[in-house]
Structure formats: C-alpha cells, structure tokens
C-alpha cells in the first residue's frame, strides 16, 4: 500500500514538489523546441522523465548542502533555486546567463545556491564532491555534499577512488546515482558487472539503498533520512534512484536502441501524472489548481525564453575574462 502523502509532508510542500516537477518538465520541453529552432546549440541532454529524482532529493537536503551533478542538470539547478531566465540565457549563450554564456547546458553553476556545478567529464564530480565535503568537515560546517551521477559513471575510476576516500576520511558525501538504465546507448547490464548499482558500495563499507526514482515522495523520504544519517555520522551513503529518461541521450540521439514497448512501460510511470493522481485522490489539490500550476510553469518558461532571446551576446572581450583571478 502506498504511504499517504499527507503522512509525509504538509499540503503546501507536496504542491511545491509538484510545481517543481512541472516546471522542470516544461523547461526541458521548451529547450527541445529552442534547440530545433537553432537557438540552443551544442550538446543538450534533457531530464524529462527523471524529475522525481532532482525534486525529491533537493527537498530532502538542506539549503547549505552542496549539490554537484553531471551534464543533465538543468532541473537540478532550477529546483535548487536558479532563475529559469538565467539558465535559459546560458543555454542561448547570452551574457546574462548563469555563467555569462561561458558554461552552456552542461556547466551550470551558482555558488550562492551551493549548486557547485554541472560536469561533463563522466565521473569528474566525485573527487570534487569529496573535496567540498572535506572542507565542510574541516571548517566545522554542518553540511554535506550531494553528488549526482548516472549509471554509466560508476564504471569510472573516480567513482571507486571517491567511495574509498569518502569512507576513509569519513566525509559527509551523499552519492545519488540516477540509474536510467543507459549510458548513451549502452544498457547498464552491458557495462556494469553488477547492474544493481547500490550493491557496488559493499567493497567500501558504505551503506546504500535502492529507491523508486519515479516516485518523488519515495526519493524525498530516502534522501532526507540518508542525509540526516550522513550529517550525524559524517560518513558517506549511496542512494540508487531507479528512473528513466523519456528522450534520447542528447538531442542528437534518436534512441533506436530502446524498444517502443520498454518506453511505453516507463511512460506509464511518468512521475508527474503519477504524483498528480495521488494529490487528487487525497484531495490535496483540485484539477483546476493543477491546470493553473501548468499554466504558471509555461508562463515562467516562456518568460525565460523571451529573456534569453532579448539578452545581449557576450562582448568579444569576454573571452579573456574570468580565467585568472
């Protein structure tokens, strides 16, 4: 039996989770459109389908906790509080972007939100998360580093180096694997000797668990519990959130390696309608309220697109800026 939502969080917060998932989805679908129009160029990896992970996990963390992620990180940044206008402007390559147009889709960053970056080298974020956790511990700060990564990243040396290091130095790192079953076109059982990713921490004496990554509340509850444990113990922990991306790896990928049937099974588990259904069933929202949330999200995204379109390009002189202090 499903837990009753109200037993976990008050109504307002439940609605907030829903709003964030809807905003994330609308943002990503708008990005796809802007990419097709040629306004967004380069690599574009969309998050549609995985929203429950970013939204549930972020809600389970403190604002002081660091978040690091890979290159599929728009939603993570926005849910953490990044202004969609400035994120969209970044994707457009405009000077008003969150990284002044120097980062792009894969390198969002906002230290004022403790959002410590999107990294495009698979596995690059593990050591950095350990370093941030070390600095927090050294300085006596009550915060952890939440490190998001994909199922493909667990085969990098940095994953294993990072797990070993975090356990050895007793660092407050919460590892969150978003297992969407694919690293580009390679399914997890073709790349990982143990496809149950959470089991891979046993060699490092790091506790771990698997959670339904299509269930925002399940992710929230697991992350909240784990984060408290990490903070109290000053020890690492790993959560494997099982999820699915509805689009190809990037906009360049037609995802021919997946069957339509498989896709349908996961589409039927779309975290957004799954959650709205429960919100309705428990009488937490009404249909008109849900419609209004969608409208509001769309308006916000449209506003972001307009802002990005109207923003100026970086000056030529910017190429020499911000390299050295």
């Amino acid at each position, binding site marked *: 039996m499903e837990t009753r939502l109200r037993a976990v969080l008050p109504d307002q917060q439940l609605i907030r989770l829903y709003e964030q998932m809807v905003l994330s989805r609308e943002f990503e679908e708008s990005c796809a459109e802007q990419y097709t129009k040629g306004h967004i160029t380069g690599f574009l990896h969309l998050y549609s389908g995985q929203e429950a992970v970013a939204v549930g996990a972020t809600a389970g963390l403190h604002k002081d906790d*660091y978040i690091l992620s890979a290159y599929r990180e728009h939603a993570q940044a926005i849910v953490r509080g990044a202004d969609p206008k400035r994120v969209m402007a970044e994707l457009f390559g405009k000077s008003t*972007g*969150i*990284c*002044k*147009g*120097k*980062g792009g889709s894969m*390198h969002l*960053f*906002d*230290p004022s939100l403790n959002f*410590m*970056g999107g*990294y495009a*080298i698979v596995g*690059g974020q*593990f*050591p*950095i*998360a*350990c*370093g*941030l*956790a*070390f*600095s*927090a511990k*050294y*300085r006596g700060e009550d915060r952890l*580093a939440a490190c998001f990564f994909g199922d493909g990243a667990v085969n990098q*040396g*940095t994953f294993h*180096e*990072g797990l*070993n*290091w975090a356990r*050895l*130095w007793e660092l407050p790192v919460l590892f969150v694997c978003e297992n969407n079953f694919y690293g580009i076109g390679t399914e997890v059982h073709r790349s990982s000797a143990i496809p149950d990713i959470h089991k891979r921490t046993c060699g490092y004496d790091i506790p771990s668990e698997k959670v339904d990554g299509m269930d925002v509340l399940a992710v929230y509850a697991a992350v909240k519990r784990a984060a408290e444990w990490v903070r109290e113990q000053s020890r690492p922990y790993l959560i494997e959130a099982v999820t699915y991306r509805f689009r190809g790896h990037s906009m360049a990928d037609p995802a021919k390696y997946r069957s339509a049937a498989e896709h349908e099974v996961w589409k039927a588990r779309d975290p957004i309608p799954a959650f709205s259904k429960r919100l309705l069933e428990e009488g937490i929202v009404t249909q008109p309220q849900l419609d209004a949330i969608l409208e509001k999200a769309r308006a916000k995204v449209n506003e972001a697109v307009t802002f990005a379109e109207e923003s100026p390009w970086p000056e030529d002189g910017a190429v020499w*800026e*911000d*390299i*050295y*202090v």
Partner: protein
Amino acid sequence: MSEMTYRDALNLALKEEMRRDPSVVTFGEDVALYEGSFKVTRGLLAEFGEERVKDTPISENTIVGVAVGAAMGGLRPVAELMTVNFALLAMDQIVDHMAKIRSMFGGQTFLPMVVRMPGGGGSQLGAQHSQSLETYFMHCPGLRVVYPAFPADAKGLLKSAIRDNNPVIFLEHELLYNSKGEVPDDPEFLVSFGRANVVKEGTDVTIVAYARMTVLALQAAAELEQAGISCEVVDLRTLNPLDTETMIASARKTGRAVVVEECWRTAGLGGDLAHRIHEACFETLLAPVKRVAGLDVPMPYSRKIEKLCIPQPESIVAAVKEVLHGN
C-alpha cells in the same frame, strides 16, 4: 639569511604558510607519517596534526580533485603528487577541472590551490619515472606553472603559490633537493609570479632556462667565461605567467639566444620561447635562436646513455658557440 637546501626551503615555506593561515592543509601519498617520499613535508604532521597533514590513497586523480573541491569550499589545499610522472593519471582533474572551473563557471568561483610535484630526469629511474612534463602544464590555460631553480626562489615562490588565488602547478626538481643556497629568513619574503630573474649578466649570448636547466646554464656560462665568452642567464622561474619581457630585453641586448629545456624537443616549450624571441627581435638578432632540449626518446635507464637524453653543460656550451660562430 640562512643557508639551506632547496628541500628545506620548501619545507620552511610550507611550515610558515601553515602557521600563518589555518585554511592551509596539505595531503598526498605518504606525506604525513612517512614525511614525504622526498621528505619535503618533514615535521609537518608533528607540528600541525592529522587534521591538516593527511596521507591519501594512491589515487592521483582524486588527490587533485579533492584539492579542487576543498579550494572551492574555502580552504587553501597544497596537494603533493609523489612525482610529476603520476600527474598523468590526474590529467583529467588538472586539465578538465582545476584549469577550467573558474572560466567555465563564469568567474563565480576561484581555486586557491597548489599541486606540488617533484620531477625531472637524471637519476636512472627509467622511462616511467624520469619525465619532464612542464610543457604539458604550460600548454593549458587556466593554470599557473612554477618551477624554481634555487632555494630562495623555492621558498618565495611556494609561499606566493599558496597565497595565490589561482590554481598552481608547482614543479620541484628531484636533483635540486639537496642543492644549497642563501634563503631570506623573513616570513613575508615572497617571490612574485611572472618575473624572470637575470641570474648572471653578460653581453654576448642570452641563455634562457628554468629549474635545473638554469643551474646547468650557469655552469656552462662559467666555463664559457674562461674562453672569453660572456653569457647572460635568464631564469624564468614561472612558466605561466611567462615573463617574455625580461627574456626579450636580454636577447635584444646580446643579439643572440639559446633556449634550454629539459623536456622533449618536439613541440617542447623551448620552441615557443624561441619563436617569441624571433618574433620580437628578428631585426636585431645576429643569429637564429638555438634550442637545447631533451632527446625525443623514452628515457633509457643506463646512466651512460641516459646522459645523452638530458641537456648537459657541454651541450649548452656547444650551442652558445654555435650561435656565436655558426656551425
């Protein structure tokens, strides 16, 4: 002033900076209990304790990455890689992260970190332990690259590196650790980046060098002096920022230049330096700039033939004579 070795000067710089600033921490393979494979971190664990002086697993990429994260979090980490050769395992964190984070995140953060690495050849350690990779780092924008030749510079540059808010690759030459020199006692003695040092004045030929190559260049210059040839020796001290002005002013004055590098010749940093001199001094040069460089081979073990692969004072002498008199 006190006379001390290059090793002790580095050690003193670490101690002084750790005393001065509690956000300075140091870690690496065998740096704490074992006190460093070259003993540069001797006495640090005893003075500063386990919190600030830490042994790490043999995970070079993660050593650098942890320093990156710690720097982003507000510390001033000084990471040690046991030798520069192992930096190749850390090139992802060095080139893709340490060098790029500030720029690709739009200047919203900075990395006040140092990665120290002993390096260079000449100790019969074989192909995998004798490399000179300074060009690799110098090639990559976003890094500072420091390579001292003398104990005083070792101290002053390391202190500057630790206080600098940019990520610094700090190279130390293994064959210089026991070399001695006068070192200022002042704990505020710093050597600024981007200022080459004219370590010997002369009139006939400029020799541009760095680290151990500067020491060899001085030996060559002393020998040439006997033959009535006056060399000016420019020690670059930092490869990034590069003080082209001092190097070019000297070449302009003497009209001839020899560039000495320990790394492989092909696409080595000496080609870049020589080009800069040619471009700036073409009109006034009396001869094309000569390069003295490491041979383009994986380093052999046998000391008889290893010597052939690394610039020697004799090869510098020969190059100076060539720029003076032609082949």
